[in-house]
């Protein structure tokens, strides 16, 4: 049986094409419990959101809706896996909450509490914003000088009065930066536009994974006790590339990281994938749905980790064509390889 690391995506992964995903959620009773929690909180149910006739950016990407939707989709996909042996779980950004549940460190219901609470807190406070900008070229070869240059630019912008800007997510060949309006605007004006869409401002996103979220982290810790967490069944890789082993992880430790460092410090997804590759050498890297937006970042992270001799997009594509390494469950043909 093939070994696999499961990767859960973060905010921005539930796009228009994902409407109706929850129709295949493997445990309708569980979904009903999620919906009941949503109703009790005065929120639209996930079934209603997912079953909507049209996709609305305002409705579907706002934090108090998107987080729970993404969580449910990822969890459902994890439950649907067949014929693969999961050896570790990780995630990108908010996907860490999904990863916790998929690895058994949070029960599905406890995971829902965490995700829904944090999603709501983020939306209520909506401190700052996020943008995404690539530093790797279209050939996906390593570009450390360009990355350093962009980070130095962000550092210098941050030093200006009234400006806040910093690294939010280290995302393979892309940088997700976060800050206040002035910081983001100054960066956008300072860099050349690329591929007709970058620098891309992420709608309804706060300045995640920066010190600006400290108030939200504090509120989260108050609302969500560490008793929600348990020892995971599978190894977890966090946004520092750090490993949590089932026998060694503690509820308090996971709680402290999840509602502390994870909220207010940069999320290093590149490091998480590097650890996944080098520590577990899985046959497959399976990206849970919703969507398939994380595929590029995973491939780029593997390239940066010198994984299987891949040094470029061409190398990766060759590999994918012969014996796929990265499986996106959001793509039907790839999903069929690993799910029932």
């Amino acid at each position, binding site marked *: 049986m093939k*070994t696999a690391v499961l990767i859960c995506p973060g905010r921005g992964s539930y796009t228009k094409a994902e409407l109706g995903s929850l129709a295949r959620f493997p445990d309708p009773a569980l979904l009903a419990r999620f919906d009941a929690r949503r109703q009790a909180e005065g929120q639209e149910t996930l079934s209603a959101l997912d079953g909507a006739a049209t996709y609305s950016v305002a409705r579907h990407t706002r934090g108090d809706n998107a987080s729970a939707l993404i969580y449910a989709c990822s969890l459902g996909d994890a439950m649907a896996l067949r014929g693969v042996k999961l*050896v570790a779980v990780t995630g990108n950004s908010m996907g860490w909450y999904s990863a916790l549940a998929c690895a058994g460190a949070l029960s599905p219901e406890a995971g829902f509490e965490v995700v829904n609470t944090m999603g709501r807190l983020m939306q209520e406070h909506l401190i700052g914003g996020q943008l995404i900008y690539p530093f790797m070229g279209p050939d996906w070869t390593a570009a450390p000088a360009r990355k350093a240059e962009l980070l130095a630019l962000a550092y210098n912008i941050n030093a200006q009065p009234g400006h806040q800007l910093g690294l939010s997510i280290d995302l393979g060949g892309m940088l997700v930066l976060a800050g206040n309006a002035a910081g983001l605007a100054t960066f956008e004006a300072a860099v050349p536009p690329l591929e007709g869409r970058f620098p891309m401002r992420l709608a309804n996103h706060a300045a995640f994974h920066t010190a600006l979220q400290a108030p939200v982290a504090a509120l989260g810790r108050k609302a969500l006790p560490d008793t929600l967490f348990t020892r995971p069944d599978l190894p977890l890789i966090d946004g520092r590339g750090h490993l949590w082993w089932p*026998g060694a992880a503690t509820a308090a430790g996971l709680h402290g990281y999840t509602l502390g460092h994870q909220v207010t410090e940069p999320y290093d997804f590149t490091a998480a994938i590097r650890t996944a590759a*080098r*520590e*577990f*050498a*899985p046959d497959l890297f399976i990206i849970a749905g919703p969507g398939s937006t994380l595929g590029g970042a995973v491939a780029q992270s593997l390239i940066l980790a*010198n*994984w*299987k*001799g891949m040094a470029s997009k061409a190398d990766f594509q060759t590999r994918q064509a012969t014996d796929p390494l990265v499986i996106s469950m959001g793509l039907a043909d790839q999903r069929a390889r690993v799910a029932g």
Partner: protein
Amino acid sequence: MFVCEDNGIGISTKTPKGWIEANFAARPGLRYFKADGLDFYDTFKVAQEAADFVRRRKKPAVLHIRTIRLYGHAGADVPTTYLSREEVEAEEAQDPLLHMVRLMDQAGVMTPAQALDIYTETNARVARVADEVITRPRLKTAAEVMASIIPPARINRPTNGPTPEARATAFGADLKAMAEPQIMSRLINWALTDLMLEHPEIVMMGEDVGRKGGVYGVTQKLTQRFGADRMIDTLLDEQTILGLAIGMAQNGFLPMPEIQFLAYLHNAEDQIRGEAATLPFFSNGQYTNPMVLRIAGLGYQKGFGGHFHNDNSVAVLRDIPGVILAVPSDGAEAAMMLRESVRLARDEGRVVVFLEPIALYPMRDLHAEKDGGWMRHYPDPSRRIGFGEVGISGDGTDLAIVSFGNGIYQLNQTNREVSSRGFSTRIIDARWLSPLPKAALSAAVQGCKRILIVDETRHSGGVAEALMAHFHETTSARLARVTAEDSFIATGPAYAATMPSAESIARAALELCR
């Protein structure tokens, strides 16, 4: 925290019982902690205590852990050739993993079956990772192996340097004295002052460098200027001096350790050879320990000190890959080469040895008493002599004389005599003895018919051998050398008998020109 994993045996030779504990349990200033590696509760608890002690009290500790040895020393070692079968089997029965499983089972944390699951899963995981690792490229050629000897350059944050006010405060009355020519020891002192002003991460350590200001006064006033924590008076232990420098260098300081006399280096040279020089090599540049090691050395100390304080061999430094050896011949050059040495350490991660000729520290006159011919003005802090640049004085082509250190002083003394015989000469100061600045040396002797090498180090294994080989390979000039004898240096009036003198150099020059 010094961690000693003690399995009680070194390949085939057992450690005497209790010997390590007896050595470390009662050392002044060192706290001793002991743990049994077969009892993981004890190990965890004691390790925590030791770490806590070191972190909170900021004092050193030894954590001595009893471990066992399984499967012999290394692959080909068969322990039954020197231990009884019973002893070997008794050790193997003490597998610490099995002890841990027993303890976890007794505590109700994990059953042996569950432990075996972790073991089996880990085995499978390691096997998968190993299958990947084995595909990674290996070093093949000499060039590939050697690529990591010299670490990658690093970009340091730019600074504006010290303000004129800060400089004036540090130098005090010395600032006015900069208008006059000075002796080498003073010029090195000023260069050190300017360097320590510009780079707050420079820390000096050595015997008598602080309060005494150095046994030759080279580091005088630096403690007043920069404080005792940047001018560390060490115990009389060269391994400690160099080890301290290595540790500080690894933690972002720029150490400038001093070895009081070259003769004292030898009990500690493995700190350079085996430790500092190899770190970038085998970590592929991921770890470095850049430093500028000042050593007072060479001979000609006018009868003082004998072989305990006069050492005229640098062989032990010249053959360490990656280590740079610089030897100035006058005070102004010393200041400029010292700055370059610091730059090489800071910007290029290098280990630089700066060998200061003791006999030239106080040297004032060149030809006649009170002529002040060897004193120099303090060069502006912006001036440096680049790594690999040699000094050339004169443009004669009948005879090029290549030397360094005290040799340059002697050559300047004798030069009149040689040129008065109608031979046109030039004097070349090699300055950098390792790696030899071969390109610059070749350029410097271009067109010269004869090359004389003057080497104050010993005939066998000395610098002249390398210079002779280089010029033989790259020129068609007639070659000759004057070297020191294969001897230790005497104390008293015969202090210079075994080394080149102004007279012996002049004789050799004239002989070569015949």
